[in-house]
């Protein structure tokens, strides 16, 4: 295989002193940027890009790529410890990560996240190495109509995510969609629901929303239910406990492999990305996993699914970027700009014209992923100390992080007020048992959904036929119908026991 030889040469390139340092520096920065709420991989890569202009292109991309994928590791830290996802792909991680941390298993959650990230990332790199260009070409067959279905699939599956209360999940989804429609209409450039407020013209920003709903909502809960939080801090935590045992490793492994594959695949598609990868993997596990009932209450499977998938997706996004010159995610779009700045011509000839660059990058990913794993695991003992901080200190601390994190993004006080409003909303929702995660996910996905629907209609000239034209659309459409009808059918068939119960109660 030519690829193997090129890969070995690439690993050789990646092992040069300066490239190793670049991968290491990128990995550390990515972990920090990922862990900090408010700054995601997109901002991180964009901030660092100008500093790489003087470097040679291979070293530069190695550093930026390391920042990108290690960001996925870092995002899980604050999601698990503080219930504040560092970036949107980590939203799903917090669903099980934070409950684990509250049970006194923060170390275990962090360890699971790191190992699963590594597994997902490695699967992504292997796929990129061997079928990257092919998969990227195939990914292009997902046009607007297919992508519409993919998002609809994600949105409908929120019903399963919150198994016992689909209505609450759907309500949150609808709320998220409504919030997402505030601001400029993407197609016509008209402001919607902005009420003449200039701050709302560009829509509700994601960062204040996510920090408010998770972080600040948490603060309110900590103040209100003080007694619940005292117990955790007094528990002794040992590092030994954080290493997963054999039984847990057996539970994590298949989940991580499945999610890594699915995540990579989603990452390759144009415009889907890590958030959707993590989300779809999580719901898949929630549906087919062995331990599905425990998911959402603090199961290692939940953390593993989300983390393996978002790392896989980060790697997958490199396939269309390198082999076609077409970005698969916001972050890889910035990297595309980077390629041009370094004097390379992105496009189908990149593999042929600049093999040292492409294979040096791919080679460095294998090494960088190992570096990330080591750093992440070594930092667990330090990170675990966060859990032992008494809540009397945590409350002002998290509040400050929330406010500074929000304010620093756009230097906008409006965003800070928005963040606080979102926190209060999240708290009120939690009183009514309405989950916040579906709201945030539908908020992220709705603008894309709107754009793809619009493009599909532009293409079809207004006919609905475009949505069932291609085989991919047909498959996705069937899946959606199947998934939305099955729970209802199951409910009808299983109706008897609950009916009896209620009669007994009466």
């Amino acid at each position, binding site marked *: 295989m030519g690829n193997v030889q090129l890969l070995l040469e690439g690993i050789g390139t990646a092992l040069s002193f300066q490239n190793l340092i670049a991968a290491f520096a990128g990995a550390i920065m990515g972990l920090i940027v990922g862990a900090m709420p408010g700054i995601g991989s997109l901002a991180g890569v*964009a901030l660092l*890009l*100008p500093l790489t202009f*003087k470097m040679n292109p291979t070293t530069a991309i190695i550093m930026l790529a390391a920042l990108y994928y290690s960001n996925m590791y870092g995002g899980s830290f604050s999601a698990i410890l503080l219930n504040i996802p560092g970036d949107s792909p980590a939203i799903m991680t917090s669903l099980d990560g934070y409950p684990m941390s509250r049970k006194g298993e923060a170390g275990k959650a962090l360890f699971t996240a790191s190992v699963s990230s590594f597994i997902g990332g490695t699967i992504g790199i292997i796929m990129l190495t061997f079928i990257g260009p092919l998969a990227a070409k195939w990914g*292009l*067959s*997902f*046009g*607007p109509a297919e992508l519409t279905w993919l998002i609809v699939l994600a949105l409908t599956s929120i019903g399963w995510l919150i198994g016992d209360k689909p209505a609450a999940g759907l309500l949150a989804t609808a709320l998220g969609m409504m919030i997402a429609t505030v*601001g*400029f*209409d*993407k197609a*016509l*450039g*008209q*402001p919607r629901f902005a009420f003449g407020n*200039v701050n709302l*013209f*560009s*829509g509700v920003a994601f960062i204040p929303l996510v920090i408010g709903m998770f972080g*600040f909502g948490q*603060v*309110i809960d900590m*103040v*209100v239910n003080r007694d619940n939080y005292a117990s955790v801090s007094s528990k002794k935590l040992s590092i030994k406990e954080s290493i997963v045992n054999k039984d847990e490793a057996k539970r994590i492994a298949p989940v991580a492999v499945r999610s890594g594959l699915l995540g990579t695949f989603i990452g390759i598609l*144009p415009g889907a990305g890590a958030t959707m990868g993590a989300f779809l993997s999580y719901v898949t596990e929630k549906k087919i996993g062995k331990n599905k009932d425990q998911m959402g209450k603090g199961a290692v499977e939940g953390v593993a699914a989300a983390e393996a998938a978002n790392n896989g997706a980060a790697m997958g996004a490199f396939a*269309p970027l390198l082999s*076609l*010159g*077409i*970005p698969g995610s*916001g972050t890889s*779009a*910035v990297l*595309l*700009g980077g390629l*041009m*700045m370094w*004097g390379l*011509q*992105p*496009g*189908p*000839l990149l593999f042929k014209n600049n093999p040292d660059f492409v294979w040096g990058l791919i080679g460095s990913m294998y090494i960088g992923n190992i570096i990330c794993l080591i750093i992440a695991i070594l930092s667990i003992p330090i990170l675990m100390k966060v859990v032992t901080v008494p809540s009397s200190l945590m*409350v*002002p601390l998290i*509040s400050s992080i929330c*406010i500074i994190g929000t304010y620093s993004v756009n*230097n906008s*006080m409006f965003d*800070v007020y928005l963040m*606080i409003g979102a926190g*209060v909303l999240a708290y009120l929702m939690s009183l009514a048992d309405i989950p916040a995660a579906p709201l945030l996910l539908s908020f992220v996905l709705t*603008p894309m959904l709107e*754009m793809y629907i619009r*493009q599909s209609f*532009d*293409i079809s*000239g207004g006919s609905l036929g475009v949505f069932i034209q291609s085989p991919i659309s047909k498959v996705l459409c069937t899946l959606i119908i199947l998934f939305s009808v099955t729970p209802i059918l199951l409910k009808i068939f299983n109706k008897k026991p609950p009916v009896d119960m209620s009669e007994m109660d009466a």
Partner: protein
Amino acid sequence: MKKFVKIIASTLLVGALLTGCASGGAGKTGEGNGSFEPKREVEFVVPSSAGGGSDLNARIISEIAFKEGFTPKNFMVTNMPGGSGGVAFADVYSKKGNNETLMILHNGQIMSTIVNESPVTSDMLTYLPVVAFDNLLIVTRADSEYQDIEALLEAAKTPDKVKVGGSQRGNTDHLAFELMNKYAEVEASYVQFDGSGDVLGALLGGHIDAAICNPSDTLGQVQAGEVIPLAVFSQERIGKEFEDAPTFAELGYEGIEIDAVRAIAGPPEMSAEAIAFYDEVIRKVTETDQWKNEYLEPNNLEGVYMTSAEAKEFFEKEIEKYKEIFTEVGVIK
């Protein structure tokens, strides 16, 4: 009830922290005393997604300005796609009086904000220098059933048969498309995407029949032979890889001619000292060899430099022209 008090208490706690931020936020825009220098990193807003022509423009300017030491503070590029440029316009507009914000201004966005009747249009912002003229062309994929522009136009006589993709609505891409529809007397349909990367993805995936973009967007695919240029919207043929693509005038279609203009803008009420500072920085940038060799040359651009004052005059005339064309082709009603 007790819970309620606690909620209030925690919100108040945060209020205390807020006051700190608010007072820090106010009054940070430095008053100009004679000469101006940015006091913090300058935010350089790109009104479209990363990887496109505007993005590249912003990144090369910030690179040169920083590398050559023309500015004490780095220009940080922020991508703000959406609303056909309206989102970024509104954002920059909301930073009234801020001297540390710049935005890439492309005549396409000027058009779309007018066409879309956006609340913020370019005349509400501060015009800064014009730096380059760019070409537009229509391309298709190599295995397309339309191997030349005549075949495409012939097929496009059937209404809505030919799908042409472009970035954003009311943009230069869209105007080029409308001009083609009107003066070549065809009825192709326009599919709007967020950025040129997305348009090319859809073209290569076979979801649209042709794409309108700038030469730099598709150079890589043209070199690889996966995309073929069909025709250019400029007055003359553009060189190198695009040599084979005729102008519409050559084909006998008059009036299908449009250039993209690349310029810079700032928030409203930017101080005169700041405008002078950026005029100077941009002038220096456009005089470097790197600008010519690494930006203009490989991207088939025509270099120009107009000061902020000249740019203002230029755009006022251009805007009249766009309004006329869009009204003529029926996009503005």
